[in-house]
């Protein structure tokens, strides 16, 4: 019997999909209702803002760690 499940369709790049899957795991799988394919997810509509905020945080972390790596590399070069 056909079922209709209420949700928010999220469309994004595969790399962002992977990050959302990670965020879902960190929240006891409470966010994603169904994974459709590499670029589409159905999520809890009340969590969309949260997902966007978490994505921002995670992407910011990546930027900082890239900066740290560069700083570390520069420090290592200066030591030589």
């Amino acid at each position, binding site marked *: *019997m056909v*079922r209709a499940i209420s949700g*928010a*369709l999220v469309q*994004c790049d595969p790399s962002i999909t992977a990050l959302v899957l990670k965020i879902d795991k960190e929240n006891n799988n409470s966010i994603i209702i169904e994974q459709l394919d590499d670029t*589409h997810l159905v999520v809890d509509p009340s969590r*969309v803002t949260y997902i966007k905020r978490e994505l921002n945080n995670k992407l910011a972390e*990546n930027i900082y760690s890239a900066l740290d790596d560069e700083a570390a590399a520069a420090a290592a070069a200066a030591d030589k």
Partner: protein
Amino acid sequence: VVDQIRLWELELDRIQSSIGYLFKDFSSIQQYLAIKKYSDEIGVLLWSHDNSRRLFVTSEGKQQIADYMMRRSNKASNRERPK
């Protein structure tokens, strides 16, 4: 690094979300295809995947599809029991 930040900003901008309904567990491929065709025609279909028989429609589309399915099943039962 500035380029990287811009790239990530672009990626974030690319996230699109739309509220609606996921239809799944269709009883037959015919039923799935009929609903897919109908929802596409009335412009409410946002995503579909034939192999898994799942499709996603806008919130506005849900009621129209429910009505359409009702009409379809009425038609089918009328054929079985002609007046």
